[in-house]
């Protein structure tokens, strides 16, 4: 399996000159990927939470990104991109970036930039998980989880796929992290919500859809850096990836809105926004591999399936995945990875091989990621539960009890 080989595949192996244009584009992409969480995802999630837990919801995304950034530098990057150890994990040679210097390159861009870009991916993946756990998780438990998950779950999977690990040889296609990021985060979120247990009063009555709209917009735009930046260079592949990303989002929006409108009689704004995100997730593994017309199909289908899952199947799971992290990122990540096997074509990207059994390879790689993610995340959650406990005592006044703050003080003390 070779999930996102394109991340390096696109760069000829002998590339060894810094390209300033490629560097400029990845500098920007790095900023855009950051924008996805800081403040994109934080707002997307906070708008959907109750106003009395909005502070905690914001805090989890933001602190998660910060912890991932620091942990990535100290150890994570080395576990992902250090010298390969049995195909499973990187060595410690890049801990604290000890073997990286100002002149090191990764392809045509400075290695420092590559490290920073990868750290942002780790931060996005981690922050996604928080959506399943809001309104009842202890803040300290989230901090410990963040650290362990980035190092023990995310970094190894990234290694398998992008760091020359065992999946890298199998030929699976994953342009920007459909499996590594979205399926992985979705599965961890599901497992976490299961172990954490349901909220006493589980509902999603968003306290502010305009806040969620700010988040959706920043996710959409930031995703251009996530997907088109995954070309790791400026040029034709980045261009088609960006075009496809926008089409995936747009078709995803319609792929949720239309069935919802027909079946449930109203086209909701939250449905449109959820659909746009689902479409973005679906196109992520395919962005630099498929024709634009196919991007529309992928975005539409992934989103429609997420819609049906969230609306009709989710309740059967009896898991309080509060903001549908599994339903949107897990499901659409999976569908996108599978559809990539069907639609990827050498005529778009001649650096890839589409094998006869590509569909099978895609499914196999998803299973590997999902199983590892589920088991390891479960272990981490159970460990924290045993040592510190997971549940916050006070759900009625979470923000006050955990952070001593209220999100809003309108008309309060004058």
């Amino acid at each position: 399996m070779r999930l996102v080989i394109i991340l390096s595949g696109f760069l000829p192996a002998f590339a060894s000159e810094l390209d300033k244009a490629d560097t400029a584009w990845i500098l920007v992409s790095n900023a855009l990927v950051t924008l996805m969480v800081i403040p994109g995802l934080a707002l997307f999630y906070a708008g959907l939470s109750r106003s009395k837990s909005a502070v905690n919801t914001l805090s989890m995304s933001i602190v998660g990104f910060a912890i991932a950034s620091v942990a990535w530098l100290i150890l994570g990057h080395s576990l992902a991109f250090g010298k390969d150890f049995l195909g499973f994990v990187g060595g410690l040679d890049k801990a604290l970036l000890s073997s990286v210097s100002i002149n090191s390159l990764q392809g045509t861009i400075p290695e420092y930039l590559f490290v920073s870009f990868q750290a942002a991916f780790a931060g996005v993946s981690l922050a996604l998980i928080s959506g399943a756990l809001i309104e009842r998780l202890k803040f300290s438990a989230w901090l410990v989880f963040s650290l362990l998950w980035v190092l023990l779950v995310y970094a190894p999977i990234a290694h398998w796929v992008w760091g020359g690990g065992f999946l890298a040889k199998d030929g699976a296609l994953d342009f920007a992290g459909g499996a590594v990021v979205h399926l992985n985060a979705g599965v961890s979120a599901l497992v976490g919500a299961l172990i954490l247990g349901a909220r006493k009063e589980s509902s999603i009555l968003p306290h502010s859809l305009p806040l969620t709209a700010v988040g959706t917009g920043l996710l959409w735009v930031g995703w251009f850096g996530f997907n088109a930046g995954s070309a790791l260079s400026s040029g034709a592949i980045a261009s088609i990836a960006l075009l496809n990303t926008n089409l995936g989002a747009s078709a995803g929006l319609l792929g949720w809105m239309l069935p919802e409108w027909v079946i449930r009689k109203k086209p909701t704004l939250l449905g449109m926004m959820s659909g746009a995100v689902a479409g973005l997730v679906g196109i992520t593994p395919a962005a630099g591999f498929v024709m634009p017309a196919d991007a529309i199909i992928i975005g539409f289908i992934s989103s429609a399936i997420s819609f049906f899952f969230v609306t009709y199947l989710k309740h059967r799971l009896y898991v309080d995945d509060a903001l549908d992290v599994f339903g949107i990122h897990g499901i659409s990540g999976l569908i996108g990875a599978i559809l990539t096997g069907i639609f990827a074509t050498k005529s778009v990207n001649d650096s890839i091989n589409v094998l006869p059994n590509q569909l099978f390879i895609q499914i196999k790689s998803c299973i590997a990621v999902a199983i590892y993610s589920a088991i390891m995340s479960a272990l981490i959650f159970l460990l924290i539960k045993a040592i510190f406990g997971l549940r916050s005592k006070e759900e009625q006044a979470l923000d006050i009890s955990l952070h001593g703050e209220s999100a809003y003080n309108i008309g309060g003390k004058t």
Partner: protein
Amino acid sequence: MKKIEAIIKPFKLDEVKDALVEAGIGGMTVTEVKGFGQQKGHTEIYRGTEYVIDFLPKIKIEVVVRDEDVQKVIDTIVKSAQTGRVGDGKIFVIPVEEVVRIRTNERGEAAI
């Protein structure tokens, strides 16, 4: 003196206020409230799950008046707040034993 409390539909506020002012009322206090009654609530939809919102937004108007003005004020409110559809609201008349104007410490009817 009496306090007249009227629960009305929010979009009627301006009309009722203008009618009261025309009827010679010089002051009132208004609160946003939620009402539950015969009028059916609506349903809100989020990601396919439906939530029934029982409590509908209403406006409570409070006017304190002299006894002799009670009927006039009731009639004025009924006339200006009526749409004839369920949910138009109620008026309650409550005795008031004393009124004070904080600015001047006047008491009784002079303070209204």
